Structure formats: C-alpha cells, structure tokens
C-alpha cells in the first residue's frame, strides 16, 4: 500500500481561491476547507469599542486539508508555497500528517484507490 499523507495548510482567507485553482491545475480535486482562528507571529491589533480598548489577537485564517498519496506531497507543498508566499508575516504554515487509511463511502474502495 502506498503511503498516504495529509497536508494541512493554514493561510490567509484571501488566498484560498488562488490556491484551489493552482491545486486543481496539478490534478488535485479533493480538498476540505474550514475556517479557523489563528495566533502566531502575526500580531493582532488594538481597537476601541465604545471607549474601551480591546485587542484582536486571533486572526481569521483558512485551513485547507488535502489527503494525497506520497508522491505528490512535494508538488502540493511547492505549489502552496508559490501561491501563498508574499514574504510578509501571516503567510501561514503547512503541516504534514501520516494517514493510515482512506475509505470512499460510495464505492467502499480503500487506500490510494479511494482518493
């Protein structure tokens, strides 16, 4: 069985469309998106609400999860780096996780075939 891997990208919401398009181009079609709040090097800001200072220290971020078999992991990472890098803080992070198995509910196929 080929190794299966999950790539978890956390980045700016405004980059999601471009990333999706770029990944489609290298043949990745299955993806899962979600909305998270991030806290990292990128700092929030201090604002006033009715005269009271408050800090916004959790920033809205988008998470894109892509499960692939081993070979294209580098490709995905490369594409992601290319699309997402602006050089400014907040570009985001990519996390790589091992996956033990994948099952496609409709067909019952398992492993790489399920992707």
């Amino acid at each position, binding site marked *: 069985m080929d190794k299966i891997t999950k790539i978890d990208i956390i980045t700016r919401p405004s980059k999601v469309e471009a990333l999706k398009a770029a990944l489609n181009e290298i043949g990745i079609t299955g993806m899962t998106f979600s909305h998270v*709040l991030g806290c990292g090097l990128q700092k929030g800001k*201090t*604002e*006033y*609400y*009715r*005269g*009271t*200072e*408050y*800090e*916004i*220290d*959790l920033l809205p971020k988008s998470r894109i999860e892509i499960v692939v078999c081993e070979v294209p992991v580098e490709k995905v990472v490369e594409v992601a780096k290319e699309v997402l890098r602006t050089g400014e803080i907040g570009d985001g992070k990519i996390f790589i996780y091992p996956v033990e198995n994948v099952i496609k509910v409709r067909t019952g196929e398992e492993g790489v075939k399920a992707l």
Partner: protein
Amino acid sequence: MEDIKLVLDTIWVLIAAALVFFMQAGFAMVETGFTRSKNAGNIIMKNLMDFSVGSVMFWLVGYSIMYGVSNFGLFGWSGFVFYDDYTSLIFQTVFCATAATIVSGAMAERTKFISYLVYSFFVSVVIYPVSGHWIWGGGWLSTLSIGGAEGFIDFAGSTAVHSVGGWTALVGAAILGPRIGKYSKSGKSNAIPGHSLTLGALGVFILWFGWFGFNPGSQLAASSAEDAIAIGQIFVTTNLAAAAAAIVAMIVTWIRYKKPDVSMSLNGALAGLVAITAGCAAVSPMGAFFIGIIAGIVIVFAVEFIDKVLKIDDPVGAISVHGITGAVGTLLVGIFATDGGLLYGGGFGQLAIQAVGVVAVAAWVLPTAFIVFKTVDKIIGLRVSATEEQNGLDIEEHGIESYADFEIKGVTLHHGA
C-alpha cells in the same frame, strides 16, 4: 366646528401614540443588537413583557396615580380602570412603557427574567406615575415658581420619561454588578461587543422615527394655527438636535479613540433626541442645534464615566443616554428657552426651576428604585447564576437559541488589552 377640533386633536395624538408605540421595536433592536447573541431572545422577551405588563398595569392603576385628582400635588388618586379619555390613556401608556423599557438595556445579559417582570410592575404602577404626576399631572413641579419663572418645562419628557428610566437603570445596573468578564481583576474595563450592529442601527432609526410622534405628539393638540406651527417647529428642533449630536459624538470619538465609533455615534443621535425632548417646543432651531452639540459631547464622556469611573456595567449606554443627557437636556431649557431662558435674558429663574425638577425626580427615583430592586434581590434574586450567565439567558431561561442555524463563536475573540 368643535367636533372637527376634537377630531383633529384626537387623531394627531393617536397617530403620535402609534409612532411612540413603535419605539418599542426600536428599543428592542438597539438592546438586542448591542448585546450578545446568547441573550438576544431574552432581551426581546423583556422588551415585549415590560410593554405588556406596563400596558395592563398603567391602565389598571398607573394612569390614576399620574392623572387622578391630586393629593397635595404629590400623586393622583381617582379613576382606576374606568376613564373617559381613552386617547389620553393610550398616549400616556406608550410613554410609560418607554420609561420602563429603558431599564432592560442597562440590566441586560444578567438579570433574572422573573425579577424583571416584577420591576416592570413597579415602574408602571409607582415609580413613573408619581414623578409623572409632579410634572404633567398637575403636581407641584408643574406649578413651581422661582424668580418670576413659573412651571417646570419638560415638554415631552426628558426628565419625566427618560431620566426616570435612566436613573432606574442606574440603580438596577449598580445593584446587579457587572457582567462576568466585563472588568478584569485589576479593574480594567473590557469590551464586550454587541452581536448585531445592523439591528442596533435599525433600532436607532426606528427610535428617531418614533420620536416624531414622541415630541410633536406632546403638543397634545392639532387644531389651531398655533398648534400647527408649533408642531412643525418641534419636528425641526427634534431633528436638528439628533443630527448635531450624532455628528458631534462621532467627532469626539474620532479624536479620542482615533476612529469614528459607530455605536457611539448611534448613541449620539439618541442622546440628541433625549436632550431636546424637554425643550423641543421652547427653543429655536438654533437652540436645538446647540443642545444637540452639547448632548453629543456629554454622551461620550458620560459613557466613559459610568464605565470606567463608576464601573457600572451598562451594555447599551442607557444610563448615559437617558439618565444623564435627559437631565442635561432638561437643564438646558433654562438656558435656551426663547421665552425665559438665560441666554434670552430670562435670568436664572427658569434654570433654577429646571434644576429643582431634575434633582427632585432623581431624589424620588433613585431611592424608590433602590428599594424595589433590593427587595426583589432579597426575595427572588435579581441576578442569574454564573453558569446561566455564561451559557446565555436564551438557553437557560427560555430553552431556545435565537440563531439556531448560525455558527456562533465559541471562542471569545475579544479581551481587554
């Protein structure tokens, strides 16, 4: 001809009553919009119920205390349930309900529902009618004379309605204590943003609209040329004060907080409306413009003062908007009234009367409200438990979620800097 005059007066007052009724929707939206989504249904329910309980109780009792035959100029006592002027009853009912509903905003997000019902009962039966009697029911304030000036001027109720609501709110919010998380251990005030600025803003527009019933309707007549001209001018003074106050509140926040604050500018408009309410028929448009400017400044500092100095947690700014600018607006009549105002050569007489009125009403409302809330607190408890507060009053007190389909933030995004 007399018939026609009666018709004109009646219909005018009734249309105004409908507009003032609609202010209930405005209060409901402002109060729910400026508080958190987990309490949205609860605050709606409180608004619905203070109006409903108030309508019934004011009919059964309150109206008679306010407009019944006067006892020593202190309170009325006659009528009860059966009246012959139903037009007056409905008009006064919606005014009473306005005073009552102010309080729910200041006490939002932590007051027990049943205790709020009890409060609604007392405000409609005692607190509001008694001072109302002094001012509008033929009581002592209406006949007070100082230095040549005679009679407390509170045309549409900056004091009779708004300050009464505001002072009651002050006492209630102070006794309740702040919402969990409002002040950090060091006493720093934290921001707790409301859940829907759009609904809050809608509420302000509705209130502004309703105020075109509140102030001009208080002419109580529309059958002579004088009435017509007065009402036209009241429209102008009311609108100018609100506009000026909104602009000025915006400018003040822009300077103090670097950015023009939306919710404070909305509060500013309301502050202008509250401030002009006493003098809308007594001042010129120019006077109204200045009253608005003053209200726009006062509101910003009042909100900060209540929040940061008194450390009383008033989620929607009700104490500042209604209590403080209500009092300021009432006093300013003594300065800007074209007939008898200080600036118009009327001397200090009217100003003194205004001051007496403001102080007297505060001196009536603060202790009475204190007794009511403290008693309720002792007997059934004024505040929900900490868990209930954290989970939200919607689910805990009413078993519902107000926004069942929406993802609500579990993570608190904001905390004090």
